[in-house]
C-alpha cells in the first residue's frame, strides 16, 4: 500500500528524479566538447593552448583544464547505478522495486538474525533449575540487563516498585512467590482488578468504618470503635480478601493484614481504593521473551526477594 495520500505525490517524486538523472546525462554528454568562440592571440605559450577563447570583462579568460576521462567514467557508472537502483529498490514514488525490499522486512530480517545469534547463548539456560540459575553469575548478569531494560521502567531499577507497581524485592507476593507463579506472571501477565465497592459497602460512614477495620488488621487503626462497626461491613470484601483479610493469591487479592500497601496505607488512600477501585496491569511478555529469558528473569526476581 502506498503511503501517499494522493496519487499526485507519486509523480511529484518520480518525474523530478528521472528528469534529474536525464539532465545529468545530457550535461555530461554536451559538456564533453566545446567549440572555440573567439581566437585569443593575446596570450602566449601553454596558456594559449589551454584557452577556450572565452573572455569576459576584458581580460578574464576561461582556460580549459580537461577533466580526466576516468572521472567521466565514474559519472557514467553513477548514472547506470542510479537507474539500476531505482529498478531494484523502491525510490520512484510508490513504485516498490523488483527486489521487494521493505524497511519492515529489513528490520524483521535483523531481528531474526539477532535471535539466531542469541539462541546458542540462551540454549544453555534452557531447562536449568531456578536455584542453579541464581548461582550462575553469568546468568544473573544477563538477567540483570534484561530486567533493567524491560522491567525497571515500572518496577524500578532495584525492583522495589512504587505506588501501584509491586515491590519484587520483598517476601510478599500478590500471586505467589513460587517459580511457577512468577513465570506465569511474566509469561501471561496479570490484571489486578478491584471494583469500586462504595455502593456495596454502604454509606460514607460505613466506608470510613471499613477503612478503620482494614487498618486494624495490621494494628494501625486510629478508631477502634469504627473498626468494630466496619468488621460487619467487611463481609462484602471477604469474598476476595478472605474473612481474615489475608488475601487470595489465586486471584491476586492482596493481604490486608501485613505492612505492604500497593496503593498506600493511609486512611485517605484506603478510602479512595474502596470508593473507586483499583486496576493494575502487568502486560504479558510471551511474545517478547523466549522461555529461557523468562526463566532467567524469574530467577533474578526471586533472588531479589531472597536477599531480604
Amino acid at each position, binding site marked *: 500500500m502506498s503511503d501517499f495520500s494522493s496519487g499526485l505525490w507519486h509523480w511529484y517524486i518520480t518525474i523530478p528524479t528521472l528528469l534529474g538523472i536525464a539532465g545529468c546525462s545530457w550535461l555530461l554528454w554536451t559538456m*564533453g*566538447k566545446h567549440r*572555440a568562440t573567439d*581566437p585569443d592571440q593575446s596570450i602566449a605559450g601553454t596558456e594559449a593552448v589551454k584557452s577556450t577563447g572565452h573572455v569576459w570583462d576584458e581580460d578574464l579568460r576561461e582556460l580549459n583544464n580537461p577533466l580526466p*576521462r576516468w*572521472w567521466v567514467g565514474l559519472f557514467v557508472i553513477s548514472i547506470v547505478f542510479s537507474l539500476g537502483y531505482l529498478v531494484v529498490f523502491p525510490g520512484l514514488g510508490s513504485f516498490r522495486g523488483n527486489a521487494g525490499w521493505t524497511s519492515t522486512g529489513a528490520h524483521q530480517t535483523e531481528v531474526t538474525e539477532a535471535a539466531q545469534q542469541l539462541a546458542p547463548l540462551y540454549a544453555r539456560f534452557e531447562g536449568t533449575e531456578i536455584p542453579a540459575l541464581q548461582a550462575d553469575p553469568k546468568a544473573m548478569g544477563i538477567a540483570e540487563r534484561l530486567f*533493567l531494560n524491560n522491567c525497571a521502567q515500572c518496577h*524500578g531499577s532495584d525492583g*522495589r516498585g512504587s505506588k501501584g507497581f509491586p515491590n519484587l524485592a520483598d517476601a510478599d507476593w500478590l500471586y505467589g512467590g513460587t517459580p511457577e507463579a512468577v513465570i506465569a506472571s511474566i509469561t501471561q501477565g496479570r490484571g489486578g482488578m478491584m471494583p469500586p465497592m462504595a455502593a456495596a459497602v454502604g454509606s460514607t460512614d460505613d466506608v470510613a468504618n471499613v477503612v478503620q477495620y482494614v487498618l486494624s488488621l495490621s494494628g494501625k487503626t486510629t478508631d477502634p470503635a469504627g473498626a468494630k462497626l466496619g468488621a460487619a461491613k467487611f463481609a462484602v470484601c471477604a469474598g476476595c480478601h478472605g474473612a481474615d483479610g489475608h488475601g487470595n493469591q489465586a486471584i491476586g487479592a492482596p493481604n490486608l493484614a501485613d505492612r505492604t500497601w500497593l496503593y498506600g496505607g493511609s486512611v485517605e488512600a484506603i478510602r479512595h481504593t474502596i470508593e473507586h477501585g483499583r486496576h493494575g496491569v502487568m502486560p504479558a511478555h510471551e511474545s517478547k521473551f523466549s522461555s529461557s529469558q523468562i526463566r532467567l528473569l524469574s530467577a533474578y526476581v526471586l533472588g531479589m526477594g531472597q536477599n531480604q
Partner: protein
Amino acid sequence: MIESTAQKGDVIWLYQAAQKIYPRSVSGRFARWRWSMVVLTQLVFYGLPWLAWNDRQAVLFDLGARKFYLFGVVLWPQDFIYLTGLLVMCALALFLFTAVAGRLWCGYACPQTVYTEIFLWIERRFEGDRHARMKLDQGPWNLQKLVRKGSKHLAWSGVALLTGFTFVGYFEPIRELPMEILTLSVSGWTLFWMLFYSVATWGNAGFMREQVCKYMCPYARFQSAMFDRDTLTVTYDQRRGEPRGSRPRTADPAQLNLGSCVDCNLCVQVCPTGIDIRQGLQYECIGCAACVDVCDDVMDRMNYPRGLIRYTSERAISGPLNGPVSGPLTGPAIETARRPSTSTPGNSEIWSHLLRPRTLIYTTILLSIFSLWVAALTVRNPLRVDVIRDRTALARFVEDDWVENVYRLQLMNSDEHPHRYRVSVAGIPGIRVASAAQILVDAASNRSVALRIQVPEATQPGHSMPIEIQITSDDPSRQPVLEKSVFLIPSD
C-alpha cells in the same frame, strides 16, 4: 600536446584520456630521504600490529567491542576527544610543515607517494627504467611482455595483499588471522575488507598514482593556501638557467649566450606528476624534489654549481642578486661559479624568515595542544560514572521513616584490572546510601547497578534537591569521581 592556439570553430575536448607517466628513476639526497621515509613508515605500518602488550595486541582498534587499545591506554567511545585531539595535531603539523617547506607530506610521507615509490621500484625490476617501460608498452604483446607484465602484477599483488592483510590486522587480532585464512574460517567481512584494501593499494599505487594527487586529493589543493613568500618550494632558478640550450661540456655558456640550463629535460622525465618545473610552481607539484636530485647530477657533470633547481623561497629567489651564481653567468663569473659552492644562494634570506608570525603561531598552538593532550591522557581517570535517576518513580516511603529515590549507577572501568568502588552521597542532611556501598567492576568492563538513596522523612520537601554522588576507587592514586543528580521528596 597540441601546440596551437584554439581557433574560432575548433572543437576543444573538455575530457581527456590520462596520459601515462613513466617517471625515470632518480638517486640523490632527497631520493634517499624519501626512501628512508618509505622504510620507516612501512616498518611501523607492517610491524606495529605484531607488537604485544599485557598479553594482548599493543595496537588494536576493536570496533565490535568499541575499545581502542593503544599500548597501555584503552580508549572507550567516551574518550573520542583524544582521537579528535590527535587529528587536530596532525592537521596543525601539516599546516606548520607546509608553511615551512611546502608539500613535505606529499613528497615524502603520504601513503600515495610511499606506495607509488614501492610499486615503481618493483616495476623497474621487471620492466626496466623509463625508456624500457615506454618501449615495452608500445611494443606488441608477446611472451616476453606477458611474462614481464605478469610477474610485475604478481609482485604488486603480493605487496597489495600484505597491505590489505596488515590493515585489517589493526582491527582484528592479527595473530589469529593467518590461521583463519589458512583454515578458510575467516569471516566474510574480514575477507572483504582485506581484498578491498588490497585492490585499493594495487589500483592507487599501480595505476592511479599522480591522478589521485591531481584530481582527488583535497589536501593537495588546500596546502597551497598555506604557502607564503618564505615557504620553501622546489623552484627552478630562472634567472640563472635561462636562456636554456644544449652546449658542449667544455663550452663557455657566456660566449654562447646561454644560462645554466642545458635543456636535458631530465627534470621532466623524473617528475612523478609529469610537469615541467621550469614553468614555475604548479599545483601538480607534490614537492618530491626528484628534479632537484637529477638536476644536481647534471650540474655536477657539467661542472656547474648545484642548485639550479632547489628548495628556496619566493623571497629568496626574487631578491637582489647577492651571489655570483644567481644570474646568467657571464665573463669572470663563470670561473667563480665553477668552484664548488659552499652555500646555496639566498640561504640567509630563507633562514632569516624561518621564524615568522605564521610559523610561530602554528608552533605555539601545536605545542600547547600537544602538552594539553599528553597531560589529559596522563591524568585520565580510568573510571567513568553516569548516574540516571529512575524516571517513572517519583519517590517512595520506606519503613522506619525514610524517603527513598532510586538511581541507575553506570560504572565503566577502562582499566585492565578489576576495581572495587565505594559509593557515598552528600547534599542533604542525613542522606545515606541504602544499597550496597561497595561495587566490584571487572577489568575493562562496565556495570550498571541500582542505587538506592534515602533521606529522613522529616526532611523539608523542596523542589528537586541537588545531591552529589561520590565514587571512590580502591586505587588510591585516582581521584574520586563526583556526579551530580537530584533527589525528589513528594510534598504531601
